[in-house]
């Protein structure tokens, strides 16, 4: 009964090495970007001094870098598991890593050499109007970096689509569309990893298509300023793309929950009609929820904002509910052995569930109009990214490679990360509820306590993640040699 849920294909050594390469890059870049983040918090706490110009460069790099590795490590989780059910190409998977690295170099160059600091969302027409802080070429370099990363992900998702089509015939079947609406028996549905990969492929391909269009238009505008466009349309397209991409990372990472927990509990992950319906609903809602990023744009049509509010209340819920419920039923009285990997994966579900609460508050128009420019917003997305998405990714990392690590210390890393991360996000959330603004390089005296507590949390979390990542890197050689990881 477990074997069916675990997939019939085994992962070839080459593919396994490629996944390990993804995780190694993700781990190293994650640590670097966490250090950038801590630098900003330490500067706000006035424990170090940092030129505001550099603050905004670091802010931009931290945002782009974190979104990037969330995507990259999510892709590693997804690809590793979906490859057990459908044929996927290791060459394409590695090509994505190549495009990502090229993009990362371009983006880092645009910031640290070119001074680009228009935030990762590159809102039109900011990239072209730097007030001489950065050049047109630096802005173009950043946009080309994003295009390179987009090209890689587009190839990867299309290849997964090809694999899904070759086994299931259509994306509807891959998603479990019929099962979700009771048109086909529940037990004929695709495994969770396939349903999730289908959903992510759909939303990310749509997102990348819109992203490519706005990136091309922004590039043309940089070099031919007489080509302008409606700034509100541009913002809509950017947030459609940006929201989908970052949101999709958690739907990729959650595959780790579906695949890893059953290996500990020796129980198959139960998929019923509700599970498939949840994924169908979330597909639609992830595509349409982005207007909640524009609640302060009064020029937006009211219906779009109201829809944004309602969908953002519901958006995360279907998959979150079936996942949280599934995780509880899967582990309840299963006698599973808790270790760092299973703990991290389980924590990921909890972090996601808790992170949804401040997100729903911020998605409410009445609250958004006073909270959106406060640290409440970084508080909410750090909750579900740092304690949700990254927890699942670290769990996958620890499960795949960490077990073979010569270093112990995994529990120490786990607790440092959990305690530090919690302090860090709570500092953001409480500062936000005290109206401390976000994106300010220099803080008032009254705000410093939040920044100091946040800095301490950040440093603890970095120490924890550093332990987990170093453990993983130390065990890489033996992890690459392979070995059956199917059931332990």
């Amino acid at each position, binding site marked *: 009964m477990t074997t069916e849920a675990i997939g019939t294909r085994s992962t070839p050594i080459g593919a396994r090495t490629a996944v390990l390469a993804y995780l190694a890059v993700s781990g190293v870049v994650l640590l670097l970007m966490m250090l950038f983040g801590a630098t900003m918090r330490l500067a706000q706490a006035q424990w170090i001094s940092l030129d505001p110009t550099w603050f905004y460069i670091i802010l931009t790099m931290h945002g782009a870098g974190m979104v990037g590795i969330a995507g990259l490590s999510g892709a590693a989780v997804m690809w590793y598991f979906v490859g057990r059910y459908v044929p996927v*190409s290791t060459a*394409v998977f590695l090509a994505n890593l190549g495009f990502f690295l090229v993009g990362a170099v371009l983006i880092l160059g645009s910031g640290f050499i070119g001074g680009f600091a228009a935030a990762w969302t590159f809102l039109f027409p900011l990239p072209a109007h730097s007030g001489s802080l950065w050049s047109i070429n630096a802005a173009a370099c950043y946009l080309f970096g994003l295009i390179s990363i987009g090209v890689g992900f*587009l*190839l990867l998702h*299309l*290849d997964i*689509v*090809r694999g899904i*089509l070759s086994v*299931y*015939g*259509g*994306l*509807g*079947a891959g998603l479990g*569309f019929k099962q979700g609406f009771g048109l086909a028996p529940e037990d004929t549905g695709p495994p969770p990893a396939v349903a999730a990969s289908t959903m992510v492929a*759909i939303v990310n*391909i*749509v997102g*990348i*298509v*819109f*992203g*490519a*269009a*706005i990136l*091309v*238009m922004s590039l*043309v505008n940089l070099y031919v300023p*007489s*080509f*302008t*466009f*409606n700034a509100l*349309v541009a913002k809509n397209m950017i947030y459609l793309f940006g929201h989908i991409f970052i949101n999709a990372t958690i739907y990729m990472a959650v595959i780790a929950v579906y695949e890893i927990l059953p290996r500990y509990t020796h129980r198959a992950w139960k998929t019923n009609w509700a599970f498939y319906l949840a994924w169908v609903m979330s597909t639609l809602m992830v595509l349409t929820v982005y207007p909640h990023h524009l609640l302060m744009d009064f020029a937006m049509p009211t219906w779009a904002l109201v829809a944004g509010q309602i969908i953002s209340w519901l958006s995360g819920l279907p998959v979150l509910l079936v996942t949280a419920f599934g995780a509880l039923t899967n582990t309840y009285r299963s006698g599973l052995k808790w270790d760092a990997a299973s703990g991290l994966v389980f924590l990921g579900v909890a972090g996601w569930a808790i992170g949804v609460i401040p997100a729903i508050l911020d998605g409410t128009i009445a609250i958004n109009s006073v909270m959106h420019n406060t640290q409440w917003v970084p508080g909410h997305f750090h909750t579900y990214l740092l304690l949700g998405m990254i927890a699942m990714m670290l769990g996958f990392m620890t499960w795949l490679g960490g077990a073979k690590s010569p270093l112990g210390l995994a529990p120490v890393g786990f607790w440092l990360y959990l305690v530090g991360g919690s302090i860090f996000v709570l500092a953001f959330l409480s500062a936000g509820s005290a109206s401390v603004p976000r994106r300010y390089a220099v803080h008032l005296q009254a705000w410093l306590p939040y920044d100091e507590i946040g800095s301490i949390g950040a440093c603890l979390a970095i120490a924890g993640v550093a332990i987990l990542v170093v453990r993983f890197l130390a065990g890489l050689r033996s992890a690459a040699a392979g070995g059956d990881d199917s059931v332990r």
Partner: protein
Amino acid sequence: MSEGRLLAAAGFWVVLWLPPVRSALESDMAVHMAVQLPLLIAIGVLAAPPLRRFEPRLLADADWLGIPGLVLAAFATSLWMLPRMLDQALADPLAELGKFLSLPLLGGLPLGLSWRRMPGLGRAFVWANFIPKLGAVGGLYLAAPTRLCAYYGVDQQAEAGWTLITVAAALGLVSFVAVFAGRPRAMFAPHDGPA
């Protein structure tokens, strides 16, 4: 059969070249961009299968996975979508001839020849790139505050922009429905190259 296709392609070309047809298809910017240019490209695609026999072996080998051919077609087609080149084709008979020759020969023909060499993933990638680029060109034409073509008014320009965006949206929607329902034949049809 193959001669029939060639004859048909040549016939279409001549019809499109006829002055009344030309002026009818070029009097409106949206028709110029969304009908005449695609028809000229289609003529090249139509002529590709019968001309395949005459393709030099060396060239066919060098066109790995159809990539160089697709790049050539992308250049040739996007060139004639520049506002200046749209103008040039109307102002200068020589440029018009250049358009009528280069779109079928450097746009459609390599597209037709190379498409068969592209693996499904490559075709899907090209398609998924074509749709947003078409939409982006439409968006730029739609939102440009000034007149970009000397021969077309701002209202025609906006109409052309909307037309391109509508075509892009329709292509996107149809592709999505086809892939969702499981009929992506065109995209993943058999090809000559390695998988």
